[in-house]
């Protein structure tokens, strides 16, 4: 029931904020902060409860919704969704704070949309009924569309339309796949249901499995995004207001990654193996191409947007490596990328508030004027290029090690991405903060509110870099379960029992952990 409360709190907050916005522009901000804080506290409360190891959900809630179709309101939480929720609410609070001065018109409706997106994202991370999942998947689109379309920059209409059409089209393909899976499962077992737990292990022919999987894949890969389908992302990111970019990059993209881990791998164990080489290749292409494009941008926000494409390449590479190391890396990458890219977008927003441009060529030499901002930017650029001690390093290293076990070639190619990341990250610092001054006049450095936000983000990213173990422990049962389903299906030979495979993994994991310690 607590899971339902979390979503209901967000929805109630959304409506209250909207209504309150009619009287006072500050009230919606406070209401949103309160709603998000209550949610955040609830989740921390759940997190402090013991994390069980026995392959079960931490919390499981089910209620009939449309019984004629076998649709239920089934919400459940395991370590993976718990981490994602922590990220969602943390960044939710941050996004309210950073919009404090930026959004001055239609404040009530802005916060209504903001909270609605967060409710949709929360729903996506919690739904265990496929219909419900699709419902929330779509629910987060519309408020995002408004967020970009109403409060965005000059080219906002085209950007928001593109965003909506891309995601909606791919989402509909997923809907077809969901229904197809429902019927395939119903025909073979006689029980017609959209429940994820029952649909696991559905027997189907290889070609059917591949077809059905491709529908899901299209939705997740567009959201992630992988390279041929990434076209919506730079526009949406650069035109959105700061809070919009933050949520897009840090949370919406993660729903795609989460979908891959939660649905693609366990529901389609054989087909996902078939897709492995293509998946890994797409990941590598994403890493390199995204980095190359990032390097070529002159617009700060577009640059950061393309780094997202590159970083998300690591996620898909990791997902299709099929081992625990890579999966831990993927989870870490989702968190670390959320924080670091989010922080860079916040920085872009802060710069825009001060000098009213996103053009890198018009910046330069700002370090002298705004040293604190420069320091923050430096930290997150370093995070983005994968400096040891920060979260992204752990994530990318684990993914690379994991991928190495599966495909040496792909892993080596992906390593080149780290060099490219260094180039574009240093370019940010160089173009914005070093070099000749192009801006006349005084600039205010970060104020107290902005300093608090930056401090929180820095603490989290350093914390993830130095103490990653709690994250690993939380995510582990969920990831192992996913991998078990995968292995059961694909290793018919009882000689290589899954136990041994798991233990081998753990051993390998401990060794690499030692390596990390030495490095740090």
């Amino acid at each position: 029931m607590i899971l339902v409360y979390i979503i209901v709190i967000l929805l109630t907050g959304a409506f209250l904020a909207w209504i309150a916005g009619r009287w006072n522009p500050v009230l919606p901000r406070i209401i949103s902060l309160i709603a998000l804080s209550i949610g955040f506290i609830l989740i921390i409360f759940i997190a402090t409860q013991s994390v069980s190891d026995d392959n079960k959900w931490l919390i499981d809630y089910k209620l009939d919704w449309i019984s004629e179709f076998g649709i239920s309101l089934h919400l459940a939480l395991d370590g993976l969704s718990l981490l994602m929720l922590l990220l969602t609410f943390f960044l939710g609070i941050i996004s309210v704070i950073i919009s404090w001065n930026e959004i001055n018109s239609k404040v009530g409706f802005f916060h209504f949309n903001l909270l609605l997106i967060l409710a949709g994202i929360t729903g996506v991370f919690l739904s265990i009924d496929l219909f419900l999942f699709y419902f929330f998947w779509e629910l987060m689109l519309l408020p995002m569309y408004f967020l970009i379309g109403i409060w965005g920059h000059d080219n906002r209409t085209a950007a928001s339309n593109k965003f909506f059409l891309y995601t909606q089209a791919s989402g509909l393909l997923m809907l077809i796949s969901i229904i197809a899976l429902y019927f395939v499962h119903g025909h073979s077992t006689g029980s017609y249901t959209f429940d994820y737990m029952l649909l696991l292990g559905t027997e189907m022919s290889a070609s059917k499995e591949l077809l059905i999987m491709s529908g899901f894949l299209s939705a997740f890969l567009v959201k992630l995004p992988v390279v041929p389908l990434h076209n919506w992302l730079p526009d949406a990111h650069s035109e959105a207001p700061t809070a919009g970019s933050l949520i897009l990059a840090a949370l919406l993209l993660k729903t795609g990654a989460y979908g891959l881990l939660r649905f693609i791998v366990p529901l389609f164990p054989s087909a996902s193996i078939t897709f492995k080489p293509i998946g890994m290749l797409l990941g590598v292409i994403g890493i390199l191409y995204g980095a190359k494009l990032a390097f070529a941008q002159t617009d700060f926000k577009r640059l950061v947007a393309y780094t997202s494409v590159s970083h998300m390449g690591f996620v898909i590479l990791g997902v299709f490596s099929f081992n625990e190391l890579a999966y831990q890396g993927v989870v870490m990458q989702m968190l670390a990328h959320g924080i670091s890219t989010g922080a860079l977008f916040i920085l872009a927003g802060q710069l825009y508030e001060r000098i009213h441009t996103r053009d890198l060529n018009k910046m330069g030499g700002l370090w002298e004027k705004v040293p604190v901002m420069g320091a923050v930017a430096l930290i997150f650029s370093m995070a983005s290029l994968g400096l040891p001690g920060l979260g992204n390093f752990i994530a990318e290293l684990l993914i690379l090690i994991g991928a190495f076990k599966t495909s040496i070639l792909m892993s080596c190619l992906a390593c080149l991405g780290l060099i490219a990341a260094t180039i574009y990250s240093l370019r940010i610092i160089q173009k914005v903060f070093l070099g000749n001054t192009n801006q006349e006049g005084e600039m205010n450095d970060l104020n107290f509110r902005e300093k608090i936000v930056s401090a929180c983000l820095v603490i989290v990213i350093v914390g993830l870099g130095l103490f990653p173990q709690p994250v690993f422990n939380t995510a582990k049962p969920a990831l192992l379960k996913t991998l078990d389903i995968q292995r059961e299906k694909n290793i018919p030979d009882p000689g290589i029992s899954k136990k041994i495979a798991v233990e081998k993994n753990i051993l390998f994991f401990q060794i690499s952990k030692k390596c990390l310690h030495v490095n740090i």
Partner: protein
Amino acid sequence: MTVTDFLCLAPLLIIATAPVVIMIVISFLRSYEVIYGFSILSLLSAFVSILYIVPAVPHSIEPLFIIDIYSLFFLGIIILAALLVTLLSHDYIKQIEGVREEYYIILFTSTLGASLLAVANHFILFFLGIETLSISLYVLIAFQRSKDRSIEAGIKYLILASVSSAFLLFGMGLIYTATGKMQFNGIVSALSGNGQNSPLLIAGFAMMMVGIGFKLALVPFHMWTPDVYQGAPAPVTAYIATVSKGAVMAILIRFFFNIRGLNNHSLFYMISAIAILSMFTGNLLAIRQQNIKRLLAYSSIANMGYLIIILLIGNNKGIQASIFYLISYFITTIGAFGVISLLSTCKYEAEMTEDFKGLFWKRPWVAIVFTLSLLSLAGIPITAGFIAKFYIIFEGMKAGLMVLVFSMIINSVIGLYYYLKVITALFSPVNEIKLPALSMTGHFTLAIIGLSILILGIYPGWLIDIIVKFAAL
């Protein structure tokens, strides 16, 4: 005729009596509010009478009528839609100078025609119903005699509807020649003896499809739709888009199922082609529209294309899906045209995208209902339209109609593009256009529509349960 016969026809009798009473009242007392109130009361009592008939059905009055749960469902939908349109007409019609009370008389006669289609089991009643409906609609469309565009639309509809009626009649004649029967269930028994594919029959069915296709505005019989939608007063447009099409759909489904249309391959391919063509043509033509009434006209063509997929599903599940779809489509369409008619005066029709710019900041409440209606037409979750579309896709996939389902998916995306354009306009910065004040009935009706769209979108289970439990042929 027995007492049960009369009882079962109660809703029809009420609807038939109401215009007579109104005519008599008008000759004594020409009061707009009295007539308006009486119309609403009559429609309400007609709806309530349906609930009383439920235990008495199925009941057939040979040879013309059949009153079963299926017809009661459609009667209920038609009467409720007529009620909503009446509620929305109040302000719009009131502004018309000169006589205006007669509007409600004609609204009743057309509703009578539509209701006849829901209970018809015979070619004669089929034709009578369609003609009663069409002739009333000519008058309704051209009700604002002072407007050129209204007259043009009326005449266009008159000519094309007469031609299509002729086709329909000819088709009926051919089928009668081939089978010797005019009663729907008689035709099927005659068919089982004869070959299904005799050229006479195929020609007959094809001719009938022309007539029906015209009424439903399916491609290639859709040319009248944008002009008529644009020219008619906004509440009447809502009426044409919902009641008239819903009633024709009711009889099409009954007829098609009674003659086991699915066994006939040429009929199957004919309907598939019409469905796919309607979806694509409707949506592609809507993309470049700036006039929202025309845009909704094209979108209705596409929507009818989605809807006739259920003919090809060919079982009760399909019928149930169609009933849910129609209910959601009715509410949604009346919502969209309701907003247009509430923002229009009889002098100035708010129909261009420009007129709706920034509506959200001026009239948030109205804009929300309009947004919900458009989202529902586009099939976005939390609206009724999403569940409706899901229902059809669901049943379509179950029946293995993958080509149709995929065209529906592609078209949903195309459709989304132009609905988004309108929604963007609603939320863009404010323009200077003055809007008329909104009356209480307007607020009330919009509230009902907005809430229904949300309730059916978020918690559709109860309605689906009712439909699944009762609605079957």
